[in-house]
């Protein structure tokens, strides 16, 4: 079981939090802080597994994380998950994000957390891995987006226009925090399906 999935940046600011066990908002923030504290002080070239993390439960649990450019992707899992498998799942997740957002960067996640949630929902459900095939995930996401567009129809057009205008006002948005092109050494599961 996956207990929680967290994404936060190098400053510990959460960009996505998904807990598969109920916690109060305060505890959630505490867990995020603690996890950031644990993960951020680790060097780049140490292993991606971490024991401890007192808040999220017993000795059975592990933190498995990956660090991409400015973002940490952290999965808290128990012993029924394969450590290397989860590392790979993170990789699939990031690659899927990259495909859906077309060269994903931190800002995509910041402004479209709802979309990230939707993508994640196609991969992990209630703490269990639902789908690991990237093409299948992307197909489903595309189909849902199409459905959304068709629903918006005429009424959606003006809103989209406004949103486009609003975005145009923001020349400061740097799109250079690209994490799609960071080559990640994938040591395992080449035959993942």
């Amino acid at each position, binding site marked *: *079981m996956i207990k929680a999935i967290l994404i936060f940046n190098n400053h510990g600011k*959460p960009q*996505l*939090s*998904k807990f598969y066990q*109920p916690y*109060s*908002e*305060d505890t*959630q*923030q505490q867990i995020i802080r603690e996890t950031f504290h644990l993960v951020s002080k680790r060097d780049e*070239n*140490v*292993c*991606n*597994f971490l*024991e401890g993390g007192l808040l999220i439960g017993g000795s059975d649990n592990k933190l498995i994380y990956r660090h991409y450019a400015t973002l940490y992707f952290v999965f808290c899992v128990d012993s*029924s998950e*394969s*450590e*290397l*498998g989860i*590392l790979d799942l993170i990789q699939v997740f990031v690659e899927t994000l990259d495909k859906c957002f077309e060269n994903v960067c931190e800002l995509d996640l*910041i*402004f*479209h*957390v*709802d979309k990230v*949630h939707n993508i994640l*929902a196609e991969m992990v*459900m*209630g703490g*269990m*891995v*639902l*789908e*690991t095939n990237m093409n*299948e995930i992307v197909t*489903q996401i595309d*189909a*849902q987006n199409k*459905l*959304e567009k068709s*629903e918006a129809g*005429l*009424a*959606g057009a*003006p*809103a989209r226009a*406004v*949103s486009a205008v*609003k975005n145009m006002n*923001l020349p400061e948005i740097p799109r250079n925090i690209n994490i799609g092109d960071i080559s990640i*050494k994938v*040591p*395992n*599961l*080449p035959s*993942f*399906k």
Partner: protein
Amino acid sequence: MALKMVKGSIDRMFDKNLQDLVRGIRNHKEDEAKYISQCIDEIKQELKQDNIAVKANAVCKLTYLQMLGYDISWAAFNIIEVMSASKFTFKRIGYLAASQSFHEGTDVIMLTTNQIRKDLSSPSQYDTGVALTGLSCFVTPDLARDLANDIMTLMSHTKPYIRKKAVLIMYKVFLKYPESLRPAFPRLKEKLEDPDPGVQSAAVNVICELARRNPKNYLSLAPLFFKLMTSSTNNWVLIKIIKLFGALTPLEPRLGKKLIEPLTNLIHSTSAMSLLYECVNTVIAVLISLSSGMPNHSASIQLCVQKLRILIEDSDQNLKYLGLLAMSKILKTHPKSVQSHKDLILQCLDDKDESIRLRALDLLYGMVSKKNLMEIVKKLMTHVDKAEGTTYRDELLTKIIDICSQSNYQYITNFEWYISILVELTRLEGTRHGHLIAAQMLDVAIRVKAIRKFAVSQMSALLDSAHLLASSTQRNGICEVLYAAAWICGEFSEHLQEPHHTLEAMLRPRVTTLPGHIQAVYVQNVVKLYASILQQKEQAGEAEGAQAVTQLMVDRLPQFVQSADLEVQERASCILQLVKHIQKLQAKDVPVAEEVSALFAGELNPVAPKAQKKVPVPEGLDLDAWINEPLSDSESEDERPRAVFHEEEQRRPKHRPSEADEEELARRREARKQEQANNPFYIKSSPSPQKRYQDTPGVEHIPVVQIDLSVPLKVPGLPMSDQYVKLEEERRHRQKLEKDKRRKKRKEKEKKGKRRHSSLPTESDEDIAPAQQVDIVTEEMPENALPSDEDDKDPNDPYRALDIDLDKPLADSEKLPIQKHRNTETSKSPEKDVPMVEKKSKKPKKKEKKHKEKERDKEKRKEKEKKAEDLDFWLSTTPPPAPAPAPVPSTGELSVNTVTTPKDECEDAKTEAQGEEDDAEGQDQDKKSPKPKKKKHRKEKEERTKGKKKSKKQPPGSEEAAGEPVQNGAPEEEQLPPESSYSLLAENSYVKMTCDIRGSLQEDSQVTVAIVLENRSSSILKGMELSVLDSLNARMARPQGSSVHDGVPVPFQLPPGVSNEAQYVFTIQSIVMAQKLKGTLSFIAKNDEGATHEKLDFRLHFSCSSYLITTPCYSDAFAKLLESGDLSMSSVKVDGIRMSFQNLLAKICFHHHFSVVERVDSCASMYSRSIQGHHVCLLVKKGENSVSVDGKCSDSTLLSNLLEEMKATLAKC
């Protein structure tokens, strides 16, 4: 309309959407909180609007704020509104918000049930998908119960997208609503072979998750998973299955054997590291499960260790970490194969990655031996010095202690070294494990007697040093060590070199800065120390010195009296008074030392931590039973004590003590004293029990592990543990030399004598003799303590509820609740108004059910056996049994016969055995549950009669005759008229009551009355109540709390034409006379026209025969009984009997519960026993036309009454 929509969306354009909110927050870095509270106000406004798009937008923003830590539970209702929007866009927003913020405590969650059901059955797969995803996060027990059936149908949805989601969510449903597991499991199992790999993977996922918690219930799936493992190419699925096998193998070693080969193949073939790693892991699990029986898997172990070594040597830190992790699993069972990689592991201790260092530490634990312990600990100590973070240093500290103390200090050869290691560890600043070190010091000092002298010297040095006192602020800090130091110095003060010096150290003013519990120990041990100093001084005749010590105490103790800690204060003031008193005595030159030290005489033995729990409950002690029955105002309760007195009066004469009472008492007193003296837990009252323990034989009971000899080393002051390492090496070297010498001598001898194989001079663990003579006193446990360790189970484990046997076929009652359209009639009124038709159709079903259940029971068992056989068969490595050899042509027919008959016999035997099992089980159930009792009782009865018939060698066919009237007048002598023991009680147009009264030997003076009620009308009978007027002698046992006048309800209703049996227990005081009780059955008869209240009076006749129990008796015992002469005699004669003697005896046996002891021609002796233990013997003689019965019984009244009853029975013949 369109215009309105466009207008709405134009309005909306200027609302903030999520992006605007995020942007806003980023632009207000200084006053973020203020900005957000502003936004929340806006959101509240938006939520009030009717436009669902606006609401959805608001909820979307709330979801973001939730992630930032804002509580959005106040918007739960709005979230539900958005969830129920018709558009997928909004629905998704709603479900996302719900999944992020709803939990079991959310009260509006119950409003979602119908909405979710609607979405689940939506024609759009994405509506369904989104509902499933949301539900998986916030499912509650109620939702799980109500929706389980809907989700189960979705498991067979046409779209794999829905199927896989439905399969996955079932796990959550099982967790919340365990009853759903059994009904849903067959379908879940089907999904393991779903054509879609995603669905298959989901099913594997769920079953693995379930099996991980309760593996034994899933063993039967092993063949299926095995098939999947060998066929699947999906690495995710493979990993899950292999992990599952890892959980299953400990339960079934044969499975492990079967697995080794395919797993080894996978290890060799796969290129995916994750799969390789899991395979290695599972192979290790297999090897662990096999380790006891199969030593010849060294190849597999070698393969694993070798692969792991490759992982550990890899430059990828992840693989290194996992390699070490898996290595630690091998270590438990095959330490030898890991120990050869010690170099690698020690190297990992220097890794820059803390996770890896910690893993390597874990491994060290299992790699130590007597030989290398000192070396390894030395290495760890240098790490302790170098370590930066306190967490890692603390981890090192606990590891050092773990390593040294493991398996009862097995690897420590020199305890002085260990003590000095502990003392060195106290120099760590800021550790949180002071208490751990303290516990070790105490443990070693108490259990290793030889070390006490050394320990005391070290501890007194600790007490003297200042650095520990300085760190006294931190709770659980290093100052905890002083707790141990003070106690050890006090308790073993006789070993102190300079007790006076230590005493002063303990009375320093700075001590008062220590935590309260440590000060308390100080105060207590100061007195122990004081006592021993006093004794020394007095023995030496230094009265002045003694007085000086007392003065020191009187001067310094007040600082503790002022303590804020209650415990310290109380102890100090108590002791201060004591010391002042001693001072007075000393002034009068009275020797006091003896008495003062008597305060602390005796020795403490270490007691195992669980000793108290393990004290077995004495036989006959029921801790749950009432000591005094709770008061009840009913009369029936009042009468009970009378019965008790009655019995006591009967028994008392037997127990009257003999005249030699005094002697007996004295002897017992002595024995008790002896016992107390041997009991270490008993606080003795003898005036000076000083060191008495040593004298009493009780001490010998303390188990002592003997470790042999050598000379103790003395290192003065605070030694460095390193010294010991050198010394130890020297010592070992010396030992070795000596040994070699001896060996040489022996060799020379051998050369002279016969040639013998001498072992090579290797130095094994056993060769190293410990440096000191050490007694490790093992912890005490109570006598005959139970060895079980079941107290570790957590009763609150949520997965326990899922421990359900899945191989049993489903029962009718096990169905998922299906939501039906509400029936207005049923909803209006409870049971009473349910239309007749429904009732009618229900009732007979129940009867059928009984029948069915029985059959199902059998089927179940068969099926289970079959399953077990399947698994066994699959697991057995032998090829399937060869088909039966073809019959040889010449003896063709014969051989066929011989083949078939045994088989038939076998089957017969099997079914019979099953039948017996059935019964046995039934009886077991009897004791447990009251419900099936009736059924079984009747069955037993039938069996009893059947058995009797059999014993009378009845010809077959009589069973069919059962139920027919008697007057078939068969001339055959052996024919027994079938009869029923049930006699008519009362009847009217509605109901017929028949009853049977049976005694039981277990409960003397109780009889069970079984009443069969038969509905003869066309109405349904309900609300039946039985009220019986108790007499002084006979009382009905009523449910607790009901009074004598209350009726006792009949636990069933009777549809037309149905009969059922109810049983009631009566308590009888005197059984020598027959008696009758009046009673009334009241009931409501209900038919289409209406309901009437009816009554039926009856008289319950307790004959004396009904108190008798058929008891077999052997003729010699019978003869003895007759000879004993305690029995009174009486006889009766009946004329005009034409019935055969055989039938006559049968009648007596049946109606009066006798058994035939012996029968000679027309004369028979019979025996029976009453429920209160009266013996009744009969001699029945048949004349030409008459029968005479002579009886002997221990109670004459009973006998005469019995004979009267018998006469009446015989007269009817």
